[in-house]
């Protein structure tokens, strides 16, 4: 797939929908992973272009599930590439991210002065009360405790 069009090939759309169909309030992959999303994926990972092209160049199929089974059996590396393209295109879409409650990797600077809840709850007290658990090499065969 050397050139990305606005509309992904029909074969890709059918396979993408078989993997990620519309269900449980989520949209189908083919309605999300358009030409722009595919361009994003291939721009970030140019090495995915050839496997994607190889998949869509295969003879057209009647049943996408059968094609996915064939890929799994005969070309697992192509199937892995297809999985990554579909998933990366789908979950980089802002609407999909909103639906799954994922805001992205956001910036939350550490506030080192915050008093940790584990100290407040005394969770380390029991660890400390047990005393040392390291094994003292100078006391052969015995723990330091």
């Amino acid at each position, binding site marked *: 797939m050397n050139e990305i069009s606005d509309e992904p090939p029909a074969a890709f759309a059918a396979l993408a929908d*078989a993997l*990620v169909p519309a269900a449980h309030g989520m949209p189908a992959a083919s309605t999300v992973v358009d030409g722009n999303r595919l361009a994003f994926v291939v721009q970030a*990972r140019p090495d995915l272009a050839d496997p994607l092209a190889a998949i869509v160049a295969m003879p057209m199929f009647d049943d996408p599930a059968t094609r996915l089974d064939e890929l799994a059996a005969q070309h697992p590396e192509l199937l892995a590439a297809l999985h990554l393209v579909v998933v990366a295109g789908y979950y980089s879409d802002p609407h999909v991210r909103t639906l799954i409650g994922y805001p992205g990797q956001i910036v939350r600077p550490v506030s080192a002065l915050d008093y940790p809840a584990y100290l407040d709850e005394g969770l380390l007290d029991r*660890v400390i009360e*047990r005393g040392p658990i390291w094994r*003292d090499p100078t006391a052969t*065969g015995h723990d330091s405790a």
Partner: protein
Amino acid sequence: MNVSAEVGVSGDRPDGPADVLIIGAGASGGVVARRLAEAGIRVVCLEQGAWHDRTEYRGAELDWELTARRQWSSSPNIRALPEDYPVDDERSDVSPLMFAGVGGSMILFAGAWPRMLPSDFRVRSLDGVADDWPLTYEDLRPYYERSDRQIGVSGLGGDPAYPPGEDPPLPPLPIGAGGLRVARAHSRLGWHWWPEPNAILSAPYDGRNRCVQRGTCMQGCGEGAKASTDLTHWPRAIAHGATLITGARVSRIETNSAGLATGAHWIDGAGTEHFQRANAVVVAANGIGTPRLLLMSSSEAHPDGLANSSGLVGRRLMMHPFANVTGLFDEQLESWQGHFGCSIESFEFYETDERRGFVRGAKWGLAPTGGPVNAALPSRAGAQVWGADHHLHVRSRLGHGASWGLFGEDLPDEENRVTLSATATDSSGLAAPELQYSVSENSRRMLDFHIEKASESLTEAGAHTIEVDRLMRYSGWHLLGTARMGTDPTTSVVDEWNRAHDVPNLFVVDGSCFVTSGGVNPTSTICALALRAADRMVERRHDQPVVW
């Protein structure tokens, strides 16, 4: 990734021989360079990778999970960049991981910073296996503490898993909702847990930024909060006169008729050969790159490779077999967020209890579980769901996981080794390393036991589902033991101060020198050992045989 095949020079171009040539600008190379340069010693370092600007890292970008699987993969075989060398790992149970560049593998490491424990240095005496180190935990403790200050370690003092000592210089990082859940569980179980020390800043330190908890530490830290020697050591080394040459791949170390190392041949990106003269040579190229280079440096005087009269160069490779136990929880933990160095650790089952059917033990580190692409693709344990229920699968995982990573002590075996490939080469035409590595029966029993206990931990924490990857193939971060230290030249490659027995002006300062692996992430120990070796070089500089 902005990969440059061009040679880059930081500092003044060397004019004449260096006092000390360092090969490799990663963790140990950076530590030694800074210490020597600050002592006024003329240092030149040759590094095959580039100096990366942290704006290159993708953690803040939409494509971070895509590029993490290729351009910023920790596997040199997957990245396959010109500065990487391929590793033939067909006969290895574990694939090695590393990074070529200034800062070395610290660029992509998680940042976990535990120390080895006192018993790790005495496994022969205590457990009757492997060998004791020629130094003790107490010998190394001052160097751990100095190194922690250089690195900027965040952690909480007083961990009863260790002997008393100086507290980390910075307060601990937050442990997150997942860490808190598991900490509560361990409190109920009466098991050890502690906030993990990390080489990640919880507050501004030494001109660097604090962590912003983006959770993408293993694709490079865009904030500069995670320590790597390109930030913590090289700027100071260069300011004190060190020269760092990047894009410089060393092909062999040369020796003279007196048995001294005279410098190293290196090749630039255009294929032009150079020779850097030096009065002493320090090899800091990791547990695979170092034996590879020593083996490539064979000569009439050293027919089996340089510094290899013991026959142990490349042997005793240890890589810490790694298992992963992930718990899935109903509660939203936002476990895509937070630092990727571990949040909490447990040494509950670290020390030997022979009733378990194996010796030694494993450290546990709790890690977050990544973003949506990671949740959607097949998991480490192989779980995948496509079709309508894919959406339920992703919703149940994204942000809902907590993962215990289990590093088991990997006992040395001379059959686990690095050799030179007869067929594979790097982009300069140099022989690639070939690995032969099998996980031992002791390690398998150990992992089985720890997997069971870690599952118990996560179940107690409330996990509704436990998934296990019993032996992760792409987990060979810790490359250790292939030029071990010892006092006997017939059974070790370097002495207790990291100097080669066979070549009195040659030093090996990376993880190759480890006698045994311990069961913890080793970078803290690598840096402490390198600092100790560098101190010794400075102290004995006037006794050091010189060439030029």
